[in-house]
Each structure stands twice: as C-alpha cells, then as structure tokens.
C-alpha cells in the first residue's frame, strides 16, 4: 500500500512538472495551430539560465540559499518572457498556417538554442541542489514525502488554478478560448488575434522556462539533452488532453506522470511505450483528446 502511495505521490510531482511544460504547448497549438518543436529547447534554456543565476548569486549553500532559489526562478521566468517574444516575433510569426515550415523553423530554433547552451555552459551537466528549506522529507504514516516534490505539486497546482481562473473569467481568457475554437471569427469581431497569440506564446514559454528551472533540482542536474526527452512527453500530453485545453493537459500530465512513476519502478525501459499506448487508447476512443473541443 505505501509503495503505491509513494509511487502516486512521485507520479503526481512528475506529472505537475510536465504540466508546466505542456500547458503552453497546448495553448500555442490549440490557438494558432502552431507546431512548436522549440518548446523543449526553451524549457531547457530556462533551466540553464535560472540555474546559472541561482548558482551565480551563491546557490544553495549561501545563507541566502532559499532566497537565491526564488531569484533563480524569477530569472528563468524573465528569460522565458524575452525568449518567447523573440522566437514568436522573428520566427513563428513568419510561418502561420504552414505546418511544414513551422516544423522546420522551430526545429532550427531548437538546434540553435541547444548549441547556444553548449557554447555558454559547455556540453556537460551542471549539478544543482534544492534550497535548504526544501531539502529532506517527512513521513505521513509510512509514506516518505520529500519537501521538494510537495513544493512542485503545490506550486504547479497554484499555476493551474490561476490559469483556469484567467481563462474562465478574464477578457483575454475568454478571447483565447474563443480563438482556440475559431480564430477567424474572433478577428471578425475586431480583435487582433496576432497580439493575443504573441501574449500566449510569451506566457507559454515563461511557464516552460519555470518548469525547466524546477526540473533541475528535481533531477539534481541540468543537461543539454533534457529538453528533447521531455518534448516528446509534452506532445503526448497535449494529444491526450486535447489541443488548447489547459484542464485536459493537467489531467493528461498527471496520467503520464503516474505511468512514468510506476514504470520507473517496475520496468523503466517500457516507460515511453506505455505513454504511447495511453495516447493511442485515448485517441482511439476520443480523437480530439480528453477535453479537446475538436474543429
């Protein structure tokens, strides 16, 4: 029993981190039908940038270690905003409506970003540790809950609630939901959908960068390959959850997180295959994904 509780807890934490990566991807795909293959690389760049700042100002060993961790997170978020703007403005904007070009150009961005990371920080992994207040664990019954995972779950859930609330209640949120359904009609009502999309792209990239940053202490390191590994999983999550659906992404991310946790325990090599199977099963029953509206 406690084994299962532990696995569920771990899966939840992994899932919620994946959610941070997938939420932006889903909105970007759902709203403007853009296949953003650079998303994983941006996630990685955010991880490096945030970690670099975290370490630069003293890291986890300084008396300010706890604060440093959050400064690093803010740095990751800021670099996300800047990168999101630059990538949308100078690449993605040129290729709306053309999937092949999107794949080519965002793959190009991915390669460039990956090389930049190697130029700045070298090809080797960088070790990174949680701040002191998130180190260690506590016991609930016999189940070991690590503080960092609890933090991930709480933080990401907060982001999820915030995101859902914004989509539900704010004007921009309502416009985004309308745009996911029919962006042409949104334009015909006097709204410059490009501007909305730039905002969503920036926001999605920011979430990915924050997620990447949090992934570091979770794994104990950041490395140039981390974006690619998670990219595929994020696409699976988007497909399972339904394009453009944030709630769908959250459910799918937890599902995939759980399967990752269980497979990591029972049969690590089968992890990706099982995620693929989940995706195939969901799409077979509901081709638009769990909460996708379809067009």
């Amino acid at each position: 029993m406690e084994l299962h509780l532990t696995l569920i807890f771990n899966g939840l934490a992994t899932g919620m981190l994946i959610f941070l990566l997938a939420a932006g991807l889903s909105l970007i795909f759902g709203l403007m039908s853009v296949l953003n293959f650079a998303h994983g690389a941006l996630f990685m760049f955010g991880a490096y940038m945030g970690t670099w700042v975290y370490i630069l100002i003293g890291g986890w060993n300084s008396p300010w270690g706890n604060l440093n961790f959050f400064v690093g997170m803010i740095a990751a978020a800021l670099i996300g905003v800047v990168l999101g703007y630059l990538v949308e403005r100078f690449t993605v904007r040129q290729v709306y409506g053309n999937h092949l070009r999107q794949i080519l150009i965002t793959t190009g961005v991915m390669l460039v970003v990956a090389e930049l990371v190697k130029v700045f920080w070298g090809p080797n992994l960088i070790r990174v540790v949680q701040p002191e207040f998130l180190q260690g664990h506590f016991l609930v019954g016999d189940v070991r809950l690590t503080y960092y995972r609890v933090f991930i779950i709480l933080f990401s859930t907060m982001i999820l609630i915030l995101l859902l609330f914004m989509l539900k209640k704010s004007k921009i949120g309502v416009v985004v939901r309308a745009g996911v359904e029919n962006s042409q009609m949104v334009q015909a009502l006097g709204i410059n959908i490009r501007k909305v999309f730039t905002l969503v792209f920036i926001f999605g990239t920011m979430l990915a960068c924050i997620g990447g940053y949090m992934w570091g202490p979770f794994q104990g390191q950041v490395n140039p390959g981390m974006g690619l590994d998670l990219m595929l999983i994020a696409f699976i999550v988007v497909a399972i959850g339904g394009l453009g659906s944030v709630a769908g992404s959250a459910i799918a991310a937890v599902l995939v997180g759980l399967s990752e946790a269980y497979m990591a325990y029972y049969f690590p090599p089968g992890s990706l295959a099982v995620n693929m199977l989940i995706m195939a099963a969901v799409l077979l029953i509901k081709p638009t994904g769990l909460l996708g509206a379809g067009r």
Partner: protein
Amino acid sequence: MLKIKDLHTHIEQFHILQGVNLEVPDNSVTVVLGRNGAGKTTTIRSVMGFYPNMSGEILFQGKSIAKLPPYTVAKQGIGYVPEDQDIFAGLTVEENMRVAMRREDDTTLERQEWLLDLFPDLREAWKRKGGHLSGGQKQMLSIARALVNETPLLLVDEPSKGLAPIMVEKVMEAMNVIRETTTILLVEQNFIMASQLGDYFYMIDEGRTVFQGEMQLLKDDEVLRKKYLGIA
C-alpha cells in the same frame, strides 16, 4: 455608407469574383441576391478583409478599407454575421457577447440590454453554452454579437437559412428594429424576407453584379426573378 467598385477576388487559383459593383446608401437595407454559388458570401467576406489578394476599391464612409485585416475592418464599425453564425460553441451566450465587446463600459452594457430586449430568447439562454443553442438562438446571438459595439454598418449573410418559419419571423422583426439605427447589407435568398426588408437590391451572378435597382422593381418583375433566382 459602403461602396464596392470592380471587386475581383481569387480563392486559390479560382477567379471567384469578377467585377462586383455595389453601393449601400446610408440608412438603407440593401439586399444581395443570386443563385447558390453566385459569389454573395465571397463578396461579404471580401469586405471583411478575409481575402488580402483581392483587387478593386471598397469605401466605407468615404474611406478605403480594401485589404485591411478583418479586425481593423470590424473596428471601423462594421458588424459581421456569417452564413453559419460561427457561434463559439464552448462559450456561454454571455461570453460570446463579451468576446465582441470592445469596451465593457456603460454605453456598451446599455447596448447589450437593448439587444437582449430585442432577443428575449438570448436573455433566457444567457448562461447556456453556444453549442447547446437552437439554430434560431444561434442566429440571434450572432446578430446581437455583431451589434454590441457602435455599428454603423451590419453585414448579414443569409440569416433565414435553415431556420424554422417562426424563427425567420422573429429574426425579421428584430431586423426591422435594427434598421432604424443601422445600415444593413443583407444577403438573403428567402424572397419574402428580402422583399419585406429591402430598399434596394443587387443581383450577383457568376461573380458579377448583373442587375440592380429598388426592391419594388424586383417585386414587380417576375421574369427577372425567374431568370436569376429561379423563383416566381
């Protein structure tokens, strides 16, 4: 209010509009007629700016709006009710209206109240999702949504299409009120509706304006109606 001069529009490789000329006088209802596939919808969509490769001149209140993107066209004060209503299915009636609101100030909310008085069905369905509305309710919502901002000109594409007669009646009554404050360009195949509402008509055939005049002319000319519309 609106003037279209020698409009040509290509969709992919097809030369769909090959010279549409049309004028909508202030405070009028001008009806565009023509058989299926004649190019009526394409004309309206060209005005909205959906085909940036069009050629010709489109003047709105004397200013050229040709080739402006749709959101700019809409912002000038042109409301658009598309052929299939294009209601946001996952959004409630309230949210559909909200997407359209340029400002959420008192004037706009007052306009919204006026529209809800005009379409009481919408008030009743206020919290319902667009996808769960009846065809008539969708049409009403599409019209209300297009009018929630200050809208000197309304473009309406076949509002009676697919509606039950009772709904056609309701929509027509509402249009009769709307016309008092808004100039209307109406595409309509239902000749009863077209002739009751219309002051002027334009006949489009194979992408060209082929005939125009006061609506009375068409009401009196059975031969003309037969020739271009196939109705007596």
